[in-house]
C-alpha cells in the first residue's frame, strides 16, 4: 500500500509535499529525467513585468557544501511568459506558481493583474526576498510594513493561491511572517537564500560580478530549518520549508518542524532526480513506520 502524501495548502490540494523551488527548475519545460508523478508543483523562475538581462558573469561560485548565486532575475517579462510557457503549463497535471518580482509595490500588483486568470498560471509566489537585485527584492522582505503592502497589492488582484517567500536576511522573521499573513497570504515560504560573499585571491576581487550572492544548498539547511520552524510557530497559514533539502530525511526534518510542504532547489543541479528521491523516500519512510498518511507524521511545534 502506498501512503497518502497529499497536502492541503489552504484551498490548494497538492498530490505530494515536494515542490520545485524557483530559479532551480527554469519554467519546468526543460528539466531532464523528470518523474512527474513525484512533483507536487513547480515554482517558475522569478519574473518581472518587463524583460531583464540579469547580472554579468560570473554568476555562481561553489562554496563549502553550498553555492552563491547572483543571477539577477534574468527573465523574459510577463508578455513572453504568457506566450511561451503558460500554454504548456495549462496541460500539466500539477500547478505552476509564478515567482513574481517588482521594484515597486505597484509593479507587483500590475504583474499579478496581467497573469491572473491566464490558463496555466496556478498561483503566485511573491518574492520579497531576492538578494540579487538593486531595487525591490529583499528590501521589501526586510520591512514588515513594506512586505504587507506588497502582499496586499497582489492579494487584491487575484483569487489564486498567494504564497509569500520570506528572506532570512532579517532581524525578526516572525514579525514579517505575521505581517504578510495578516495581509492575506495563503502560505509562507521560508526561506530564500542567505546573503553571502566570496573573494578570489588571484584578482583580490569578489568571485561574483555582483559582489554578493545568495547562499543555497546543504550549508544553509540548519539555519533555514530554524527560521522555517520559527515562522511555523508564529502563523496559522501553512509554511513551505526551503533550504538545502537534498534527501528525504532533510525534508522530513522540515515537516516535523512544522512545515506543510517543502521545496527542493540546489539539490536538483547535482541530481536531476532529487525531487523524485525526496518524494519516494518520504513515502518509504511512512510505510516503514506503518503510517498510511503524511498526516500521521508527528510534528514538533511548541507555540510561543
Amino acid at each position: 500500500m502506498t501512503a497518502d502524501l497529499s497536502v492541503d495548502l489552504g484551498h490548494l490540494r497538492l498530490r505530494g509535499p515536494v515542490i520545485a523551488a524557483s530559479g532551480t527548475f527554469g519554467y519546468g519545460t526543460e528539466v531532464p529525467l523528470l518523474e512527474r508523478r513525484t512533483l507536487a508543483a513547480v515554482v517558475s523562475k522569478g519574473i518581472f513585468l518587463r524583460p531583464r538581462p540579469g547580472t554579468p558573469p560570473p554568476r555562481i561560485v561553489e562554496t563549502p557544501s553550498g553555492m552563491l548565486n547572483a543571477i539577477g532575475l534574468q527573465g523574459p517579462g510577463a508578455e513572453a511568459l504568457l506566450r511561451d510557457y503558460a500554454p504548456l503549463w495549462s496541460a500539466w497535471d500539477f500547478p505552476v506558481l509564478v515567482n513574481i518580482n517588482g521594484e515597486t509595490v505597484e509593479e507587483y500588483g500590475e504583474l499579478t493583474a496581467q497573469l491572473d486568470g491566464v490558463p496555466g498560471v496556478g498561483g503566485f509566489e511573491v518574492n520579497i526576498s531576492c538578494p540579487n537585485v538593486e531595487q525591490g527584492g529583499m528590501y521589501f522582505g526586510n520591512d514588515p510594513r513594506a512586505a504587507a503592502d506588497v502582499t496586499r497589492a497582489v492579494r487584491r488582484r487575484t483569487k489564486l493561491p498567494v504564497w509569500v517567500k520570506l528572506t532570512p536576511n532579517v532581524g525578526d522573521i516572525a514579525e514579517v511572517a505575521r505581517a504578510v499573513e495578516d495581509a492575506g497570504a495563503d502560505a509562507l515560504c521560508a526561506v530564500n537564500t542567505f546573503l553571502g560573499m566570496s573573494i578570489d585571491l588571484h584578482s583580490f576581487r569578489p568571485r561574483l560580478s555582483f559582489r554578493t550572492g545568495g547562499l543555497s544548498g546543504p550549508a544553509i539547511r540548519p539555519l533555514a530549518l530554524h527560521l522555517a520552524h520559527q515562522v511555523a510557530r508564529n502563523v496559522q497559514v501553512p509554511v513551505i520549508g526551503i533550504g538545502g533539502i537534498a534527501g528525504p530525511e532533510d525534508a522530513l526534518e522540515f515537516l516535523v518542524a512544522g512545515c506543510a510542504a517543502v521545496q527542493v532547489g540546489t539539490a536538483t543541479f547535482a541530481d536531476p532526480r532529487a525531487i523524485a528521491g525526496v518524494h519516494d523516500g518520504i513515502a518509504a519512510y511512512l510505510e516503514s513506520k506503518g503510517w498510511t498518511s503524511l498526516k500521521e507524521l508527528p510534528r514538533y511545534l511548541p507555540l510561543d
Partner: protein
Amino acid sequence: MFEASAPLSERRQVARDMFVLGFDAPAVAAAAKAGQFVNLGLQPGPLLRRPFSVYRAGGGRVEIVLRAVGEGTSQLLSLREGDLVSVLGPLGTGFRFDPAWRSVALVSGGLGLAPMLLAARDARAAGLSVHWVHGARTAWDLGSEWDGEEATWATDDGSRGFQGSAVAAVEEEFGAVLACGPNPMLAAVAERWPDAQVAVETYMGCGTGVCLGCAVPLTAGGYDRACREGPVYRAADVDWPALPSHLYYTAVPVASPSRPSPATGGGEVPV
C-alpha cells in the same frame, strides 16, 4: 540526455599533467557529438557537477581529458578502475558541419584539444578535409594523441613546431575554423575569423539549462546559456571583454591548504 552511474574503465597520460579518463556509459557515448560535454558528479565530492568536453566516444565508453586544477579534477584523477561516477550527458549544442566547406581547421590551445578528436571524426564524416593546429606552452604540454593526417604544432617556447600561438600558426585559408581553448585565445580567434565556431567555458550550476548560471554575454546584448544554446558559438556573437576568463590555473596558483596542488605528471615527451 542520459544519466549513468559509470565505472572508470580507462586512464592514460597524454601530456605533462594531462590525463584521459574513460567511463563506461554506452548511451551517452553513442549520442555524443563533437563540442558537447558531460557533467560529472562525484559522491562523495563537491556539491556541483563538473563539466568536461567529450574527448572520445565509442565502444560504450566516454572519454574526457583533464588536468588537476582544483578539488573536483583532483578527485577525478585519483579515481581507481571500477570507481563510479555519475555521467550526465551529452549536454549542450556542439559544432555544426557543412560539406560545402570542403576543408576545416581545428584550432586549439592547451586543454582546448578536448573536443577536437570528435570534431575531426564528425568533420570527416561530413566529407571535410581536416587540418588540426594545436598549441601549448611547451612540447611536454601538447597532447600525444591525434589520429589525423595533418597536424601543426605550436609551442610558446618553440620546443616543438611553430613558436607562438596556435592562432598565429594557421597560415592557409580553410572553409571553416572551429576553435577551443582559453577564452582570451578564443577572443583572438574572433578577431581573425568572426565566423569561426568556438567552444567557450563558463562556470556552470546545473549544466542542463535551468539555473542561468552559465551566462554568455552576446554582442547583440543580453546573455544566453553556455550549457544549452552553447557551449559552441559563432565567434563574433560573443562579447569577449564581458566573458570572464576563469582559467587562473594557467597562471601561478595561490597556495591553499584546503586545495590539493595540481598533480605533477610523469613528464613524458609527446610523440
